């Protein structure tokens, strides 16, 4: 019987150099697995594999040494623990994310929730080339968003609340952009210098800052054979609806304009960076104006 390697790869079964052996890639969203899922993975690694797993560079997990004759059994065993195979090849891949506001004191957004929403909307979508989403909660950028075709970084707009402020001066020093100044016990915020990092409000002992969380997006990141840093095209924005409109427009663009094996940036280069930026800015403008 001829083995359909393409179909297996699509379903997360990565062909090993050893004949009829596969590493099974697991569907992980935002780098989170439950203890129960780990239990199932452990059992499969012991029963069918060599008793170990491999962590991938993008928060997935692979169980190597899965024999071709065991594939159906393995899928069934894993399903009992809520574990499903991931994908490989030309489609939307694992969405990476940090732990975000769920546990991290630095985070501005709930990256786990966002990664789930992105995954539900786009995971495994067939495209001319692979497509990667990455989410990070703040400008510490633990999840390296600019490596991804679309990167989403949490940020926050701040508004000073004079009544709560004790003029302690901590925020002025916490700001790394030099955007804050204190004059006569009043804080002056220079919007042009502000990077929306939120360090002022995170350091404030009196919660004297309003927090308006939002996103800084980047497009066209690559970190494989070719290296390209994802580019920010539109300014910081606050609406999740706008975020998904921009993602939809990008995926549509990639689907229509990419050639087989392309990454987003290759398609942008062929189409013209300026024209692509204009398209993204028009989607952004339309969405932001509709919100007003």
């Amino acid at each position, binding site marked *: 019987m001829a083995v359909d390697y393409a179909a297996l790869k699509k379903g997360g079964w990565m062909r090993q150099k050893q004949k009829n052996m596969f590493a099974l890639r697991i569907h992980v969203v935002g780098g989170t697995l439950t203890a129960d899922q780990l239990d199932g993975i452990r059992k499969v690694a012991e029963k069918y594999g060599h008793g170990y797993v491999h962590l991938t560079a993008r928060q997935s997990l692979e169980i190597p040494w899965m024999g071709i004759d065991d594939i159906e059994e393995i899928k069934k065993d894993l399903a009992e623990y809520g574990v499903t195979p991931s994908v490989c090849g030309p489609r939307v891949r694992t969405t990476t994310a940090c732990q975000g506001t769920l546990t991290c*004191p630095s985070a501005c957004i709930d990256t786990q929730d966002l990664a789930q929403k992105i995954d539900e909307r786009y995971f495994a979508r067939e495209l001319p080339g692979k497509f990667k989403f990455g989410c990070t909660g703040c400008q510490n950028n633990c999840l390296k968003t600019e490596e991804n075709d679309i990167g989403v970084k949490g940020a926050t707009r701040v508004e000073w609340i004079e009544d709560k402020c*004790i*003029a*302690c*001066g*901590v925020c002025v*020093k*916490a700001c*790394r952009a030099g955007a804050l100044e204190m004059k006569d016990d009043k804080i002056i915020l220079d919007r042009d210098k502000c990077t929306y990092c939120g*360090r002022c409000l*995170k*350091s*404030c*002992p009196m919660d004297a800052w309003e927090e308006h969380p939002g996103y800084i997006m980047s497009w066209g990141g690559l970190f494989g054979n070719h290296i390209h840093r994802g580019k920010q095209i539109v300014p910081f924005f606050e609406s999740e609806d706008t975020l998904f409109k921009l993602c939809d427009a990008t995926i549509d663009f990639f689907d229509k304009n990419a050639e087989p094996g392309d990454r987003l940036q290759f398609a942008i280069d062929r189409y013209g960076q300026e024209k692509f930026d204009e398209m993204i800015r028009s989607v952004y403008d339309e969405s932001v104006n509709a919100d007003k």
Partner: protein
Amino acid sequence: MAAVSDIKIDDKVDITDVVCPVTFVKTKVALEEMDDGQVLSVHMNDGEPVQNVPRSVKEEGHQILKLIDNEDGTYDLLVRKVGED
């Protein structure tokens, strides 16, 4: 708010001779030895310590009162100890 001169300082700690993360550890140890409501003055360098130590102190639940710029490249952070409930 109260003027800085009205704040009674109960103890002082100098963290200019150490680097992160010992800066915060030294501050934390000094606070542990104090009673609730007492005020600690933390003497620190400009740069990384003044960007991060105040925030770490806040995240531990203590009350920051003031950051004083000594205008010699050092700062004094005044912290009121808040004990665990």
